[in-house]
């Protein structure tokens, strides 16, 4: 690993593989032969030459540190610039930063993963780590909601998960035409059809509205706040707790988050514009 001088200095990395997931979502993977170790839920700051940096969750397999993977939606200046790059392009990378899904601590429990839209990307490393150590967990349930069937990401992987006998995967979409034979509705609708126990460890990621809604429905079903983890998003410039942008009350989302246990952050999420 190249030594890094000062926390603001990125390392150059070359895009080894580029995959288009959706019209505006793409995955880049980098070869990191020396091993880029990270914990599920962590993010990197990705730098595009002359444009700027953006915080993107790592979406790869933590058991394969020789390959670094990011799944990105082109939605702002830097991510749109990222979209114009391709195999062979060089980016700057700083990280990994942030807190992680408590995959180790959840051992011995039933695990429920609820993903909304591109929220599946930061959850993917956690899912892979759980499945790689399947015997250490009880029931494993994955609930995934997307806008429409054509907007499902990681389709092949979803099919592989679906094909296992030891995982329950349910997928639901907000909109569909007659050629979709799965359920239609909000992702929380899937909670009606699966066992939901107070002892479950729930990992939740998606748009903030969806996460708020999902936590309400989980609480109605008796899941306590200290059993729910979610991943928050805030504006980040430095990613290391020095610039102040990502603060949510007394918390730096880049250091204390982005993954939070709900009971620790709920009071702040409830105050408008905090």
């Amino acid at each position, binding site marked *: 690993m190249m030594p890094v001088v000062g926390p603001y200095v990125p390392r*150059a990395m070359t895009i080894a593989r580029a995959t288009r997931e959706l019209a505006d979502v793409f995955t880049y993977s980098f070869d990191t032969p020396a091993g880029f170790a990270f914990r599920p839920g962590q993010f990197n700051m990705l730098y595009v030459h*002359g444009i700027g940096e953006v915080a993107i969750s790592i979406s790869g397999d933590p058991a394969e540190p020789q390959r670094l993977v990011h799944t990105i939606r082109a939605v702002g200046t830097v991510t749109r610039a990222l979209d114009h790059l391709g195999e062979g392009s060089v980016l700057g990378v700083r990280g990994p930063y942030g807190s992680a899904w408590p995959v180790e601590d959840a051992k011995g429990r039933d695990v429920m993963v609820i993903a909304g839209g591109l929220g599946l990307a930061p959850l993917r490393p956690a899912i892979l780590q759980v499945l790689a150590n399947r015997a250490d967990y009880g029931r494993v349930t994955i609930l995934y909601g997307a806008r429409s069937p054509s907007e499902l990401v990681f389709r092949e992987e979803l099919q592989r998960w679906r094909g296992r006998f030891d995982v329950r995967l349910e997928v639901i979409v907000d909109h569909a035409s007659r050629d979709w034979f799965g359920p239609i509705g909000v992702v929380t609708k899937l909670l009606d059809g699966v066992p939901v126990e107070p002892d479950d460890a729930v990992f939740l990621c998606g748009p903030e509205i969806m996460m708020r809604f999902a936590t309400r429905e989980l609480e109605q079903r008796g899941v306590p706040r200290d059993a729910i983890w979610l991943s928050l998003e805030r504006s980040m410039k430095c990613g290391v707790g020095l*610039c102040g942008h990502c603060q949510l*009350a007394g918390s730096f989302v880049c250091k204390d988050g982005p993954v939070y246990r709900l009971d620790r952050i709920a009071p702040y999420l409830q105050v408008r514009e905090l």
Partner: protein
Amino acid sequence: MLGEHLVLDREGFAAVLRALVETGHDLVGPTVRDGAIALDTLHGIDELPEGVGDEQAPGRYRLRQRDDLALFGYATSPHSWKRELLPPRVPLVQIRRGPHGLAIEAPPPPSRKVAFIGVRGCELAAIGVQDQVLRDGAYADADYRARREQVFVLAVHCSSPAGTCFCVSMGTGPRAGSGFDLGATEILDGEHRFVVEIGTPAGRAIIERVASRASTPADRAAAAAVTDSAATRMGRTMPAAGLRDVVMANLEHPRWQAVADRCLGCANCTMACPTCFCTSVEDTTDLSGDVATRARRWDSCFTDGFAYVHGGSVRPSLRARYRQWLTHKLATWHDQFGTSGCVGCGRCITWCPVGIDITEEVAAIRGDARTRNHDG
């Protein structure tokens, strides 16, 4: 000997400044410029604001002529030492795009020895607060750390607090706490002299180069009298006990809207504040587009774009942004760093164009809370 008090006369003080220069220090300290006290490069004692005093009030700052020759007869400057340690713009990294990819280069860390002349108690405390944020956390800002290592602190214990000072409430003055190399009290009673305490071996090394005399009990009593008197002339108070909890319990207090109705969102307070540390990273390229520079520059939580996600600000209203600043400064700073973010220097009050006074805002919120507790 550390902790020893020596006495310098005016010429001795000048000699200390010369000794600092001779040992390779750049001097930065107070000087009159543009009708205010600025912190700027000094070349010697003659550039200090001799006989100058100040008047500070909410939204008001004036220099005045004192009837003595005090060198430090004023309170805080609109500048703070933040300008030296966390400069408004610092290049962080240069990235050169070539045929083989990106060549990434960090500039060499600054290696300039600087002596801060006339650091006040509140300012020294503020430096300590920023040390915690920028140097002592899990990630250190390399530029801040490098600059900080090269600083010699010649502190001055305050004699002349201004109308917006409340260092006594925040426990940061008028005597400067530990962390100075030399700490001086200016005495104008009788002979114009300085009682100087040796704080560190570096401080001793400097003062040993100049002629001084040992201090007598009378000298030390005179020095104590200066700061004791200053402590009784604070412009303001802000009781700090339990402040964090009171603020956090009142996040929806109507006072936030009332102050927001006055606030211009000009960010003066954050720029003048010696503990505000928020920065942003700015990207620029040369004309060819091949050489990009990333630079760290001051930012403020008052700006609309400060907390931006998915095409919208997290704090669209000025009310939310004012609340963010003050609750961070007085409350959540405790959760993050175990201390208050405020040192009671009063700059935010003096330099607010509409004269918003945080001590008054806090009193209003506290006062209501006290009333509510009585009723409920």
